[in-house]
């Protein structure tokens, strides 16, 4: 595997170089948010309120961790299935988000919104929550703590792995996989 080192926040220059199938190692900050948090963030954006973090150039990780055992930064922390966040892709991209990390297919609408705004969709290793936990250096809940595992977390990561599924040029690794069947 030929890994590309990526520092967050993402800039357009980096986004332009990424292609479907590329393997990336993230360092810097990711924001973890899933279903309910997205619903609330969309409402905040629609009402003209500021989000709990500046979304410009950021990468959102679709993830709800298991609780951190004593002495640990976070519990298991693998990706959740991304299509449930498809209805929010347009709004989040419009707010300046440049990347999403999850697992599984995105809708045509979500892919279109990401291409239009120059945002990349990555998948990390679904179900490998214990493995991925070791790539997270720090974790803090920054909003919506009433949602429990669905709160927004600020994660500092080092060498966090993910594969480019949808680049900004219309590539789709999952479709490529099926075309090679047989």
């Amino acid at each position: 595997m030929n890994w590309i080192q990526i520092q967050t926040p993402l800039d357009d220059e980096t986004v332009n170089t990424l292609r479907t199938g590329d393997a990336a190692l993230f360092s810097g900050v990711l924001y973890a948010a899933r279903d309910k948090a997205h619903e609330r963030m969309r409402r905040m954006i629609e009402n003209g309120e500021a989000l709990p973090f500046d979304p410009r150039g950021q990468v959102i990780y679709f993830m709800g961790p298991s609780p951190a055992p004593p002495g640990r930064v976070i519990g298991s922390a693998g990706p959740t299935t991304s299509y449930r966040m498809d209805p929010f892709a347009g709004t989040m991209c419009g707010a300046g988000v440049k990347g999403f990390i999850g697992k599984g297919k995105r809708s045509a609408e979500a892919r279109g919104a990401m291409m239009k705004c120059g945002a990349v969709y990555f998948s990390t290793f679904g179900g490998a929550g214990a493995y991925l936990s070791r790539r997270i250096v720090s974790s803090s809940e920054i909003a919506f703590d009433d949602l429990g595992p669905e709160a927004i977390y600020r994660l500092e990561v080092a060498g966090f792995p993910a594969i480019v599924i949808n680049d900004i040029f219309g590539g789709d690794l999952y479709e490529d996989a099926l075309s090679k069947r047989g």
Partner: protein
Amino acid sequence: MAHRRPVSVELIGRTVADLVDRASFEMPAGVEDLYAAMRDRENSGTARYALGVLVDNAAIARADRLPLCQDCGVTIVFFDIGQDVSLEGDYLPDAVNRGVRDAYERLYLRKSVVGDPLVRKNTETNTPCFLHTEIVPGDRVGITVYLKGGGSENMSFLKMFRPTASVEEIIDHIASCVIEAGPNPCPPLFLGVGIGGTADVALVNAKRAVLRGVGSRHADPAYADIERRILERLNATGVGPLGFGGASTAAAVYIKEAPTHIATLPVALNLNCHSLRYAEAVL
């Protein structure tokens, strides 16, 4: 009247908690070796890497006592209760729910159950769990705890076939479902197939099927052959581990069949992700 063997309901609840513990941190024997063998068969670098991650993940979960997956699942409990057993103590589901609540709290497992499907407020206990009970001969209580995550459960399928449908049509259907699910249920899959019964029976049988035992073959050679054909077909779809492409779309296929009506042929699919989490005990 036959002798009734007393079994403590409290003990059943504590056993369920122990089984949640075992299933959360360790997959059944043989699974990791299976992934290592599948890795050696893959040509794509990404597929090989992904399978290696799954093996590493299992080792880290066991060593660090971190859950295999952050989605610690809903707790599904299959009981085989001997008809010569006398359940002593509290109401059984209450004791089981106490055991589950205790385990999820004590073991730092994620609580993913909402009490009402539309209001969607987290119960903060991962209860209620879901119980399936069968009455069997004898004086033992068989308990299987099965943890199922939401991502793979969302990729469940039920199709009511015409009773004259061929095995080929059923295999075609299963392959198209697995392609449709693609990366979402975290392949390589342990695929449970419920054939026959009524719609609800087929779905429960599909769930039970994946608990038959890693490496086991169906007792009926005809069904064993269908399982083998489905597995080969799925591994030719190209989906691959985590959908990244390759030959490791499924690790195993298990069928559980049941008698059915002359007019019906239900086929239900339970797609279990690569993280096969169940544990069993007999009291």
